[in-house]
């Protein structure tokens, strides 16, 4: 038979225990492959979360950056959340997406910070925060989005909140949507988005007609 059998792990290069200093050095100045390997274990080392944050700020390789974000998501502490947050403001869409995905992966540890982002002075951050809030459990997310919708001056942020509410909202969201529609009566696209959201919620509340 042409298929061969080899002892498992015969081609393994072996996995030495990580040496903290060597990992952090590789993270700072290694080749792409060395930084990738270091990124996969650095966040769990003493002082590693801060070092990963510094590495993220200078890292150009998308795959190493991905591993850095995963390391922070794996640690999932308030400190690792704080390290990720500034990257939501990056000009690079890949970095923003990486930060957003890492926060989503950190789940409840990141929720207080995500809720605070809804009040961020930067419009783009508030828009991103709406999609992050959408991934929280509905009973947590809906009041946050409704509060935002009642006071938010930017129509694009409202539109992002409306999109999220359309998916997770129930009858309790209808009055909030109606008030927003009234406030933005002169903004046709938002008026239309709200109408679609309200129709969708009403259809779910009443169920399909016979």
């Amino acid at each position: 038979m042409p298929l061969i059998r080899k002892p498992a792990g015969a081609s393994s290069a072996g996995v030495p225990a990580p040496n903290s200093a060597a990992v952090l050095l590789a993270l700072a100045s290694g080749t792409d492959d060395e930084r990738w390997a270091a990124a996969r274990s650095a966040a769990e080392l003493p002082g590693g979360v801060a070092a990963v944050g510094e590495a993220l700020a200078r890292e150009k390789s998308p795959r190493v950056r991905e591993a850095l974000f995963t390391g922070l998501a794996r640690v999932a502490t308030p400190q690792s959340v704080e390290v990720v947050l500034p990257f939501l403001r990056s000009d690079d869409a890949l970095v923003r997406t990486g930060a957003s995905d890492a926060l989503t992966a950190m789940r409840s540890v990141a929720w207080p910070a995500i809720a605070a982002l809804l009040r961020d002075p930067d419009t783009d951050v508030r828009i991103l925060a709406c999609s992050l809030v959408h991934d929280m459990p509905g009973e947590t997310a809906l009041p946050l989005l409704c509060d935002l919708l009642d006071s938010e001056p930017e129509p694009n942020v409202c539109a992002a909140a409306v999109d999220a509410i359309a998916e997770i909202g129930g009858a309790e969201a209808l009055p909030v949507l109606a008030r927003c529609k009234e406030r933005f009566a002169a903004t046709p696209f938002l008026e239309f988005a709200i109408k679609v959201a309200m129709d969708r919620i009403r259809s779910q509340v009443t169920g399909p007609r016979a």
Partner: protein
Amino acid sequence: MPEFPTLSEDEYRRLCEFLYRRTGMVFTEAKRYYVERRVVERMLAVKATSFEDYFARLRVDLRGEIEQFVNAFTVNETYFYREEHQLACLSSDLLAARVKAKAHGGQIRIWSVPCSTGEEPYSIAIWLLENWPLVDQYDIEIVGSDIDTDAVALARAGVFAKRALMRLSPYLVDKYFVADGSETWKIIDDLRQSVTFTAANIIDQVATRAHGQFDVIFCRNVLIYFDDTSRRVAAENLYENLLPGGYICLGHTESMSRISPLFDVARFADAIVYQRPPV
């Protein structure tokens, strides 16, 4: 079976956290019945007098209880030639691309993870013997790995019930199996010895690295059990386990694009798979 113990919210949370740390599998409150049923099975097996008694044994891994506990939570429902279109893609496209990157007669490594009770890696072996014209010209190593050590032991034994063979033609059953009782069939020794089986958890970086790099990985219907973080870790482990240009096949409901940007999508006539970008 006696009444299920009703775990308190705190007990259930501690148990699920323990399971998550060990396996990456996430069980929410909606899965309480499934979880409690397996806990009571293990409590009966070790004669634990209460949940606290059982959890204490689990935490100190008394008599290898962690392994038995994890085994109780794995799903080993599969059969030969499942998702046959991916096997067709393997022989018609993936290996053709991989051999271009190798010297003639070189080695091709294929990993089935998780392999459950062995149906998938044996299917790969049979499929290649039957359908890949170059099968005699390359050294093909097939490795099957699973977190469930009981499943790995069954895979090594290579004995299967009729249901597992339902997609195989009588010709293939006759060629690669021998009757082993009235309702079971055993893989022929030549084929059984051509697949290596190991215990491994795909979120364990040390364990996965020890398996080296592969040309093709079949990782089907497991990532759906993980949360976002474990999926990302698994994706990065699998990335390391692929040679540059190597391919990974997921289950038909799974998408690597939603998990990690590390891989390129590769579309073929028979299947959509994912590729570690070539150097």
